[in-house]
């Protein structure tokens, strides 16, 4: 058996795939460090807040008066030394939590982060169980009698 087709190689492949998925999800979930300039910080925070009057557009992408005003306030708070979460909380305290594009990680709304992961784990478990069951099922070779039936059927057509 080739060293690239054996069970060890397959197991290693699955581990590499799982590691790649975890790293990708990790990079998507956590940003890679705070932005450097005030403008970058304002842009980053504004992109996580919803424009109060224009549907799902972010404050960063919107040019209505309310969004421009919020960007000015974000800049002021950033220059005061407030952290992004403190700035988001301050804006949420005035406009309501519905302006947050990122749901909070705690409370009932925090389930939107947990439930997809739980569903994914269950689905992966189900797929793994199904694959394992298929692998355990013995292959049945056709008997001479089966071959004779098939040949007879082909002959009778």
């Amino acid at each position: 058996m080739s060293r690239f087709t054996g069970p060890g190689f397959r197991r290693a492949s699955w581990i590499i795939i799982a590691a790649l998925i975890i790293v990708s999800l990790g990079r998507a979930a956590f940003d890679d460090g705070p932005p450097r300039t005030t403008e970058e910080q304002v842009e980053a925070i504004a992109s996580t807040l919803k424009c109060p009057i224009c549907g799902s557009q972010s404050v960063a992408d919107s040019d209505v008066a309310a969004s421009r005003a919020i960007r000015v306030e974000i800049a002021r708070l950033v220059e005061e030394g407030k952290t992004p979460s403190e700035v988001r909380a301050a804006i949420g305290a005035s406009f309501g939590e519905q302006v947050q594009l990122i749901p909070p990680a705690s409370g009932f709304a925090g389930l939107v982060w947990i439930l997809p992961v739980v569903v994914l784990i269950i689905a992966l478990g189900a797929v793994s169980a199904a694959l394992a069951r298929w692998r355990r099922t013995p292959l049945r070779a056709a008997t001479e009698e089966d071959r004779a039936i098939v040949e007879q059927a082909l002959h009778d057509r």
Partner: protein
Amino acid sequence: MTDLTTEPVEEESKPRSALVASVVIAVLVALLVLVLATRDSSNERSTQSPLLGKVAPTVAGTTIDGEEVSATDLRGRWVVVNFFASWCVPCLEEHPELLAFDAAHRAEGDAALVGVTFDDKTDDARAFFEEHGGTWPVIDDPDNRIGVAFGVAQVPETFVIAPDGTVVQRYAGGVTRAALDELITSYEAAAAP
């Protein structure tokens, strides 16, 4: 002939486990939908505000006429804070209602009106009042800082602050004198011994 049927016990357990898995996933997905569906819609121009029942943000600054004004000086009276812009048609439509409210309560001294500009130029706001009347103080807010503190999304918006300094009502859109009077009367009736 070869018996190709599988074991009966296995046949029964497969659908059962599939059913359990389906139910579990369905419950989880239903929970997810519930969480998302119960979040407040941001598209509603409702009168909800996280400020209701809380101490009002600071309403202070320089008026369009260059005078310093602060709503805290009006503590003990009802304060109606009206956010407006000279370019805003609904603001123009509600203006006569504010004129009537101001005329009635200025004499009584029980309520005061304070205007705050929103996304407007000082000269334009001053010209608006010169043309359409109104002598209540109008704070010039070039950065919309007061508007953001009140969560103003779109003018006109009006907030009613009780004599103790708490926000009791938010009106998104044009307001009427009757609505303001009714609100104040209902609160005063509820507070009466």
